């Protein structure tokens, strides 16, 4: 089994899907000759040509809208938004169109488009190259939102997204791109969209998170284990629609729940996670449902002092976990 980086897993999944199915094609800004600003599509232009790795004009609503049209026709577009922050001009196409096409046509049509975008902070990206945008989309039935944490999950989930017959938003943590490495089987596997994944077993406290937060929690858990505190860590993987069963099971297991996101707090994904727990297994809880998130400010500032203040990190997660364990 090869060890590869998070971004290599992205490229691998794309390549394998394009080899497997000639209906799969990529479109986006600078995805062709340049291979993407993060080089996620590196080498694909050479391998598959300009038509299947299509450099589009600088217009996100067209990228989404043209992709949706091609998907309705029967192709399998994988659209790249250069940064998750720049998906917003395509918001109407994604919410009013992609998410509603099956429903509004009473199952006559479908729009199997995958939209990839790098999100997340801690990369000196400032306000508009650091945002977590999932919460804005996570109230829209018809959409699925996948946010993988490991190279293994990236490959299996991106393949699943491309093969899915419904629109999938696939958000990749840009700091994870080169930071996170892991073993990735070379065979053609898919992982189920909609299912959370237990990344660590433990009996004392439950941490529910996703993306880079999973790694922070895992690191913190190792430290806490030395103090005798065993954390159970659930990686949501799909943040919409949520895997309610897995959430309830994980919360019930320890009775003490910490929810972690790097998004700002109010209205983030983890609010819904808390609500699911509070609605379904309130009496199994031994502590308030705690949340660790960014502060409620518009986005992450550029200056290192303020960026660090905003961004979650292993230390902040560790402290929150310890506080909860000691509750």
């Amino acid at each position, binding site marked *: 089994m090869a060890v590869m980086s998070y971004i290599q897993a992205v490229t691998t999944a794309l390549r394998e899907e394009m080899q497997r199915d000639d209906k799969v094609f990529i479109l986006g800004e600078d995805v062709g000759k340049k291979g993407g600003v993060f080089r996620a599509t590196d080498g694909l232009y050479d391998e598959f040509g300009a038509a299947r790795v299509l450099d589009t004009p600088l217009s996100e*609503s*067209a990228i989404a809208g043209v992709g949706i049209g091609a998907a309705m026709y029967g*192709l399998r577009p994988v659209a790249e938004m250069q940064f998750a922050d720049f998906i917003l001009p395509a918001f109407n196409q994604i919410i009013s*169109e992609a998410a509603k096409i099956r*429903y*509004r046509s*009473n199952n*006559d049509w479908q729009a199997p488009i995958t939209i990839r975008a790098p999100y997340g902070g801690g990369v000196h990206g400032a306000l508009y190259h650091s945002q977590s945008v999932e919460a804005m989309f996570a109230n829209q039935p018809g959409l699925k939102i996948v946010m993988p944490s490991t190279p293994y999950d990236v490959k299996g989930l991106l393949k699943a997204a491309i093969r899915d017959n419904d629109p999938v938003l696939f958000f990749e943590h840009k700091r994870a791109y080169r930071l996170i490495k892991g073993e990735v089987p070379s065979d053609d596997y898919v992982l189920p969209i909609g299912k959370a994944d237990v990344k660590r077993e433990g009996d004392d406290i439950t941490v529910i998170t996703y993306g880079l937060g999973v790694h922070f929690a895992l690191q913190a858990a190792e430290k806490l284990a030395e103090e005798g505190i065993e954390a159970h860590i659930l990686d949501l993987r799909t943040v919409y629609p949520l895997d309610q069963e897995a959430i309830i099971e994980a919360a019930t297991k320890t009775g003490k729940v910490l929810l972690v996101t790097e998004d700002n707090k109010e209205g983030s994904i983890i609010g819904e996670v808390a609500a699911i727990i509070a609605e379904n297994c309130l009496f199994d809880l031994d502590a308030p449902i705690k949340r660790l998130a960014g502060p409620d400010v518009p986005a992450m500032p550029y200056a290192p002092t303020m960026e660090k203040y905003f961004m979650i990190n292993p230390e902040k997660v560790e402290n929150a976990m310890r506080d909860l364990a000691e509750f």
Partner: protein
Amino acid sequence: MSLNRHQQAGITDEQVLDMYKTMLLARKIDERMWLLNRSGKIPFVISCQGQEAAQIGASFALDREQDWTAPYYRDLGVVLAFGMTAKDIMLSAFAKAEDPNSGGRQMPGHFGQKKNRILTGSSPVTTQLPHAVGVALAGKMEKEEFVSFVTLGEGSTNQGDFHEGLNFAGVHKLPVITMVENNKYAISVPFDRQVASENVSIRAKSYGMHGVTVNGNDPIEVYTAVKEARERAINGDGPSLIEAVTYRLTAHSSDDDDRTYREKEEVEEAKRDDCILTFSTYLKESGVLTDEIEEKINSEVQGIVNEATEYAEEAPYAEPEHALRFVYEEQEG
């Protein structure tokens, strides 16, 4: 003997009668929907009235067995030409389960029917334009020989999606024909407070594409323009933007009262140019339409509309719980 106008355009007598009949069917369905609305039987109508010539003229210039279309809410004429039936339309007007557009989920005018390659539409205007471009892109990638035909109102040409979609089509020289049905109003806002350019077709220059303005009251003129655009598209000469100048003969919709913002005289004048009248006059003058044929067509259309209305009115609604179905693909159980 010199050829008359439709023959010059390459339209046979039979086809031209078929065009007329389809226009009339669209008109009569539309009129019936207003009656049903005013008598409280259906909650909403949005009309094609005044735009039938443009819609039918264009559709008949396409290959209705191969080409794809992304119509907008007024395009009753287009969808009828593409194979939707009066019954389908009435089922939609009554929001019945059997409605092929949406199973009664969407308002009337929100067309969609996969078997006839009519893309499913929504309410926010102009979103369909990039979809049509995407279909054209797919066709080009798959080396299929068809065009993608998309329509919208002139007000809707001011949406960002118009610009982004057409620029994409222009850069990649895609086989897509955009027809703007310029009916001079976007609800209450007249052309000159809406569109900054002298006309709509000049906007083609922004996208390096062929552009032309035609009289949308004349189905033959529209036919000719769309035919040419289709040839260009099939020959790899890229997309076209066609502006069909028409007039909206009704209020914007059954919820609108147009007397608050336009003069009665203006509407009256437009009604004198009503394409159904002018086209039937032309057909009579050119000897294709006799009183006898006209009567036959009228009663046939009448019968179709009656039957469709009765059927749809009787048809059942979807079950309440059907609201839960088809959010995502359902696995066969």
